[in-house]
């Protein structure tokens, strides 16, 4: 008996939804008209109506749509499928308990315009989360309004700007230099520029730390508004001179903003407020296990010192006796940065995470996250170039240096990892390491998964020596092989059009 592989199965050969269209197919039936018919021209003028009769919109049934998108959803990788070691992104498990709590009807169905008296529970939750995050960061002024990390960062930088304007008056114009390390996240210089600052880059040392001499030299040049620093930094190393760094910036008359992207290495162990940091943003969708990216909206709380607290966005959620209220009367506030109070659903999940862990549990999660990264670092150091000797914190960085002589680069290693069932790590970031692979296992993986990941990386190192083409042409086990990323970026096809060649047939 011979078995032929069928390639027409829809999971192997998914058409575009447009290609499934059949003229005249209708997936609904309207009830009989039980009111008097009105001439449409009396309700909507013809210039406001489309004239093309929805040309090109696919005519499909409900079940066609559901199956089409469900099939495509199975091509995705997700944190519920396996280890997702995307450095700097903290792709930790999002517990089902968080989801259960977020679906409590009193929270889930609350209208954002509900009167304050009818939303006391929600306001109490926000207030409680603020208190917990203040304890965790050591920074007592908090707004949960920003909708994402970059917005929290922008909020922090605008607060620095408002503070300097108030403190220095007209002279604040001379203080417009924001220092940013060469290893920083790209959003840092973008936020600084949007807030009207000029960026000067601080070099890193060979050990992967802020170059203190260069920092001092830049401060001596004057005009310092502040420093934007990630700690642990983007190569996963703790800036051990953080206290001195903050002192230098403060002496130069500036403030220190910390990018909280890497807080998963610090929670319950060390507090930015104690290090001398003035303002920080957190990512609830990283450190506090709320859904990430396509899985849900983000939340990027901004936490600051009491000195900066008057500048936080309005409204502030404040306690008045036993009740909670919204305080709009903050004349020095930078204003609103997001409609209503931010992404409330994420606050519920983050508080659920904090409460279910407790102080001890949060500390243990941090320790496990660091231990896991060090475990990976320890086991791969023979096979891959590790550009910095220091012990990493919650993420460990390698480069492709040992593989390039065989023609294998970081991108190839990342693609080959997909064949082993792992989401690739962050690649080519930060830029100061050529061919960087930034691996962040998080605390959500056990020893078996870590060992499987290490084995996969070791196998790829071996393949690079014995059969580099296997790696260079990866992935092999996926529905679609190596994509032409350059063509996709140079000539992007962003929209289906009726006269377009069918993409799915060429894929």
């Amino acid at each position, binding site marked *: 008996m011979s078995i032929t592989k069928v390639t027409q199965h829809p999971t192997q050969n998914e058409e575009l939804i447009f290609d499934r269209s059949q003229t005249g197919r209708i997936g609904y039936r309207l009830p009989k008209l039980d009111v008097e018919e009105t001439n449409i021209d009396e309700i909507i003028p013809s210039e406001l109506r489309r004239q093309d009769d929805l040309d090109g919109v696919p005519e499909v049934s409900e079940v066609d749509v559901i199956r089409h998108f469900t099939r495509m959803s199975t091509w995705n990788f997700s944190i519920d499928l396996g280890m997702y070691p995307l450095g700097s992104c903290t792709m930790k498990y999002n517990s089902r308990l968080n989801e259960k709590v977020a679906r409590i009807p009193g929270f889930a169905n609350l209208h954002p315009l509900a009167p304050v008296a009818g939303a006391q529970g929600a306001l109490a939750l926000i207030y409680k989360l603020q208190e917990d995050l203040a304890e965790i960061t050591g920074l007592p002024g908090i707004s949960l309004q920003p909708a994402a990390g970059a917005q929290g960062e922008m909020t922090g930088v605008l607060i620095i700007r408002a503070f300097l304007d108030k403190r220095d008056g007209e002279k604040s114009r001379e203080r417009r230099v924001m220092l940013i390390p060469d290893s920083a996240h*790209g959003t840092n210089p973008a936020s600084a520029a949007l807030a009207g600052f000029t960026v000067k880059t601080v070099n890193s040392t060979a050990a992967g730390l802020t170059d203190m001499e260069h920092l001092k030299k830049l401060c001596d040049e004057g005009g310092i508004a502040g420093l934007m620093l990630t700690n642990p930094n983007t190569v996963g190393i703790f800036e051990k001179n953080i206290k001195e760094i903050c002192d230098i910036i403060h002496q130069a008359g500036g403030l220190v903003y910390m990018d909280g992207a890497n807080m998963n290495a610090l929670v319950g162990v060390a507090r930015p407020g104690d290090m001398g940091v003035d303002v920080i943003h957190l990512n609830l969708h990283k450190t506090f296990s709320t859904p990430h990216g396509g899985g849900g909206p983000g939340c990027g709380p901004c936490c600051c010192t009491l000195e900066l607290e008057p500048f936080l966005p309005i409204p502030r959620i404040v306690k008045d006796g036993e009740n909670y209220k919204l305080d709009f009367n903050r004349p020095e506030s930078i204003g609103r940065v997001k409609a209503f109070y931010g992404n409330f659903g994420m606050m519920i999940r983050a508080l659920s995470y904090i409460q279910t862990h407790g102080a001890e549990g949060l500390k243990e999660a941090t320790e496990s996250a660091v231990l896991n990264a060090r475990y990976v670092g320890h086991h791969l150091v023979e096979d891959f170039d590790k550009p910095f000797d220091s012990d990493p914190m919650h993420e460990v960085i390698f480069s492709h240096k040992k593989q*390039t002589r065989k023609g294998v680069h970081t*991108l190839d290693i990342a693609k080959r990892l997909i064949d082993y069932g792992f989401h690739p790590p962050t*690649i*080519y*970031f930060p*830029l100061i390491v*050529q061919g960087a692979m930034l691996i962040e296992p998080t605390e959500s993986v056990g020893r078996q998964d870590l060992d499987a990941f290490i084995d996969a990386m070791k196998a790829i190192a071996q393949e690079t020596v014995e059969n580099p083409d296997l790696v260079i042409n990866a992935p092999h086990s996926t529905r679609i092989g190596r994509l032409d*990323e*350059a063509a996709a*970026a*140079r000539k992007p096809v962003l929209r289906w059009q009726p006269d377009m060649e069918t993409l799915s047939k060429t894929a």
Partner: protein
Amino acid sequence: MANKIPENLHYSKDHEWVKVDGDVATIGITDYAQHALGDVVYVELPSVGDKFESHEAFGSVESVKAVSEIFTPIAGEIVEANDGLNDNPEAVNNDAYGDAWMIKVKMNNPLEADAMLSAVEYEEYLSENE
């Protein structure tokens, strides 16, 4: 990987090349730089008349990996920018020293080019940093 390093050009440690013709310098990025960047998908260049100090960023190159700033080793005023790179950014990968020249600068001080690395010095610099 052997990098092409033409002899008649000047080189910077930021991996730009400069070709001098009278008081005008033509500037691009080196073969080594385009290899390091990977497939280039977009090149952002300044406008004619813009003025730059030496070592100032005059534009950026976006590859599938990252966006990188490009620095002018020579101070001066832009007299021409290579608009052809808008539609043909892959030229940076295919012909770094030819079609993918980026800007022409009227130099404030032609001596700046002489202070740059020669082809031999640039090759040494690359091998030291490999």
